[in-house]
């Protein structure tokens, strides 16, 4: 099997880069943490990689809005190289802040004819940052990262994670196209009805979204925080799982290049 190279792209304020690199390596990839300034200096750097992952954190402090400044950099300076990457049968993953960056940079969902984004991630309904474990349902056959998964249990930790689409038509279309890939459910797998199962008030319980190809994926929960049994909040009562639910996402990414 070939070992894919993963570019873990960090900016000032990115703070989940170490554990995200670790997750890809545990899954068999070879990952580098690379500062955005290196990519801005030589955008062709990304061509050496098969997977780009934008990890969680507070890029540029989430000032103005979560992920906005980083996304704006992508739009202003890296749009060509990123679209080229996306169109070369490679994978892009955005976790939490990375999801916010992907959605706001237009890399995940195309802008409409007026250049306006079809969806966004905005403030949680209760207006606060929240760290909490949630149940999730794989709702897409096309998302590469979720292949073979069904129900997942992962932590969220964000203030601006509420997924909102511009209108119902867009929602129906994304739904029909299996792009609303990951949804909040309850412990039994029933669609979430409000807080706390749906921790932020996301429309249609959306926790993660993929592009039309299934190769670009963004999600609010943190799969890199559940790689091993002791990270589960109830391992002392339920016993140690041999591996965490999050590892599957990284393994799927690596195995895509097998």
């Amino acid at each position: 099997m070939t070992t894919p190279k993963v570019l873990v792209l960090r900016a000032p304020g990115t703070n989940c880069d170490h554990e995200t690199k670790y997750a890809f390596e545990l899954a068999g990839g070879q990952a580098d943490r690379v500062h955005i300034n290196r990519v801005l200096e030589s955008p062709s750097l990304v061509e050496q990689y098969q997977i780009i992952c934008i990890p969680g954190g507070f890029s540029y402090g989430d000032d103005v809005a979560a992920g906005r400044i980083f996304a704006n950099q992508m739009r202003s300076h890296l749009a060509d190289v990123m679209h080229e990457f996306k169109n070369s049968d490679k994978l892009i993953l955005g976790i939490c802040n990375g999801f916010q960056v992907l959605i706001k940079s237009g890399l995940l969902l195309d802008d409409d004819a007026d250049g306006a984004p079809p969806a966004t991630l905005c403030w949680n309904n209760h207006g606060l940052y929240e760290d909490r474990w949630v149940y999730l349902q794989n709702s897409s056959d096309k998302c590469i990262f979720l292949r073979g998964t069904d129900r997942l249990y992962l932590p969220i930790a964000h203030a601006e994670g509420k997924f909102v689409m511009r209108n119902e038509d867009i929602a129906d279309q994304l739904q029909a196209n299996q792009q609303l890939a990951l949804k909040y459910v309850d412990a039994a797998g029933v669609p979430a009805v409000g807080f706390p199962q749906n921790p932020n008030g996301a429309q249609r319980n959306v926790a993660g979204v993929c592009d039309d190809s299934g190769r670009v994926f963004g999600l609010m929960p943190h799969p890199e925080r559940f790689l091993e049994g002791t990270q589960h909040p109830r391992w002392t009562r339920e016993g140690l799982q041999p591996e965490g639910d999050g590892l599957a996402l990284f393994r799927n990414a690596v195995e895509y290049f097998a």
Partner: protein
Amino acid sequence: MSLWEIDIYPAEGQVDRAGEELTSDAIDLGLDPSIQVAAVHGYLLEGDIEEADANRLADKLLADSVVEKTVVAAVGDERLQQAPVNGSLLVHVINKPGVMDPVAMSAQKGIEDLGIAVDQVRTFRKYWVFGVDQGSVNRLAEKVLANDAIEQVVHGPLQLDALALGTAYEFELKKISIRSLTDDELEDLSKQGQLYLTLVEMQTIQKHFQGLDREPTDIELESIAQTWSEHCSHKTLAGRIAYKDDETERHFENMLKETVFAATVKIREELGEDDWCVSVFKDNAGIVTFNDEFNVAFKVETHNHPSALEPYGGANTGIGGVIRDTLGTGMGAKPICNTDIFCFANPEVDHDQLPPGVLHPRRVMKGVVSGVRDYGNRMGIPTVNGAIYFDNRYLGNPLVYAGNVGLIPKEKSFKEAHAGEWAVVIGGHTGRDGIHGATFSSAELTSDSEMLSGGAVQIGNAITEKMVMDVMLEARDRNLYTCVTDCGAGGLSSAIGEMGEEIGVEVYLDKAPLKYDGLSYTEVWISEAQERMVFSVPEQNWKAFQTLCESEGVDATIVGKFVDHGRLVLKYHDEVVGDLTMDFLHNGRPPIIRDAHYEIPAVTVIDLEDKAASLEQDLEAILGSLNVASKEWVVRQYDHEVQAGSVVKPMVGIQNDGPGDAAVVKPVLGSSKGLTVSCGMNPRYGDYDTYHMAASAIDEAIRNSVAVGADPSRIAILDNFCWGYTDRPETLGSLVRAALACYDMAVDLKTPFISGKDSLNNEFSYQNEEGEKVTISIPPTLLISAIGQVEDVATCTTMDAKEAGNVLYQVGVTKRELGGSHWTLIRELEGGAVPSVCTENCNAVFPALHQAIKSGLVRACHDLSEGGLAVAAAEMAFAGGLGMMIDLAGVPTDLDYSGDTENVLKLFAESNTRFLVEVTPENCAAFEQTLGGVTVARVGTITEDDQLVVNNGDKNLLTTPIGQLKEAWQSPLRW
């Protein structure tokens, strides 16, 4: 040049959440309930910007078109003054000039990324208030919308024509005539100049300059004041103290050194080759060994005075500061988790009851929690442990303790600057932020403090510190510097002064990068601008160091050079503005000599007969008392899992919402060794005897760590003394007595103190309506923080009940100890014996219980603290979603008690060194054998039936659904 205003409103159909919350705060404040507040935020952009570009910025960068809408116009334009509801009054809130505005800085960067030139950006908030008169709006602005310490309120439209700050500074060397001043004049100078030095200290300085036959410059006087401040030198506790209580009399040359520190010295001697302390009481944090590769550093700081004036900024910069402490320990430790402990007055207190100059405790609490949240979360450091303590004596002086644990490679644990190396500052720029923070924090607060000391309040910018951390850890691993310290209180003056203490240094004050023009050389020197670290960089490494910093957008500047002359020489361009010997600066302070008295209060007895009629109500009342009640509202706002090392989270149990005893973190990815973090604090016990308060806090911190699986022989602790006005002998006496307990406990348990910090003079004075001076002193408040180690985290346990049918044991003995207990608090009773600690018992219980946990014999373990056995049992039951049957007949006690006395004591006494432990029936024999040498007894079983049942033999005392108990515990702080 144009000045654009961009107002951002929620789009049609989107909720104005900020407005709704403010409306509810306004009603809480007592304003007309028909009030409606609409919240708007916005940006001011100054520069040669076309209208089309301003619109583009609003649309593409500053607002989110899916959920927001904007109004873009030149400042003063009528379009900006169209109220959403006719008849609304308009208020703007904008930062005072020079207050940190991180969002504006980032917005400026984003604007430049879009290829648009902008000169200045500022953010503001704007409110439309409907349904009340101007008087109410003024009150709302003052109490809720703005904080006068950092913000200004503009009623009506904004009237501004420029944003630029600062004016060019014209150099002028200032000399202060001191040599011929009288004592009164010296005292005046100290006060007016905000030096906060005593007369004896001022006289010492006077004599020094008389000897030099010249007057000091302003910067020399400031340097001395900073270095000699209580905050930087801890002169009271490290000073001479004559102590006397009813039992002993002692004279200390250096009180801390002879108590807390001496205990560690003694323990290290006794441990000999097994000594696991690495660096204690000398660096910014204490260091102990961890594994073959790493040591671990731990520090807890206080940031009380700034938090009283501006809770958000105070707490924000408090956590930012303590993170820099671990970063500045050895050659730099990587921060791996935070712990935060707060003390507030009751958040439900009536607005009309507040003394002048005091912020409402609810506002203080919300601000402090937000400040810690925003800094810790942005830094990517999990906040894993904490506590909140409520007592109305914290009304004028809330306490904010912020702690940080760091991981440091073994060989990077020490540092030394050398002559010839550059003094380099990296990170934030220098502004007028926090001028006089060090001296101010050593003074008593008054209702005027807000006006006098507004400059001491700062807002942090976590991302700047995160960038500093990223490059410095890389530079550390590349060996690019030889020494590092943080810029904390006293700014460059303290950081460079300390680093060059043993060598000598010359400083180029004109070189420091500034936020804006106009700072004098003295302001540069003492500014406490945040997010700066100082390094000693060998000349040959400077280029590499600078390049590394630049590559991640971090400013690095040479501001001085270490020179082997034993002097502190301060230059502005080519002019020498200050020249002091390091010896006078660091050793010239006259010793403080203080008296300390303590009168040990006589123990009184509470008659308990006829006081057991309401056991069920008492239990619910304790569960709902603020100190015990669930802090989930706070905990969930902190990222407690970033870095992916979380093993035992703050909230545990079947619904992830029970109160864990201690957090467990695995700091090295892929390795199985863990750290526990816990704390202990009992200010109410201090009202009875500060000796037992301190001993109990230590016991509590240790037993919390032991309860989750920490090895008691590898627990290190920190002290943080927050006290009132220690010039009063009885106040200082209560502190010395606590320090004596620290010594006794540490030595007996072989649990070393590795670092500590004190904050004195926590008192608030104001004039009441009759014109009399009223002073509120905080209760003596000692925080003990513990860091423990677990060889294999898979052996850890949690406090939630696990399975029906399992057996419950009480480990440890219940005594007639209700003094300062939460049962007496809710019953409004005084007296009783305060819980004491038997160290011999600790040395039997802790290792034995640890052995049982490590061997897998324990399914759940919860320590007994506030509310005693009753609260521990209730918490354990509802956290596990299971019922519990307790028979008090089995509870071990020191003496025979009977009747109501027996039931009250067994349920609610707060005797130390006790645990409630769940064991499976098949492991009972092994458990009892492992606990062979200590008092342990079966007290009940876990049941299926969702009830907490307490009997004493045949008599049922209490039968309550666990849902009801949980609701009592969760509802008070479910904000």
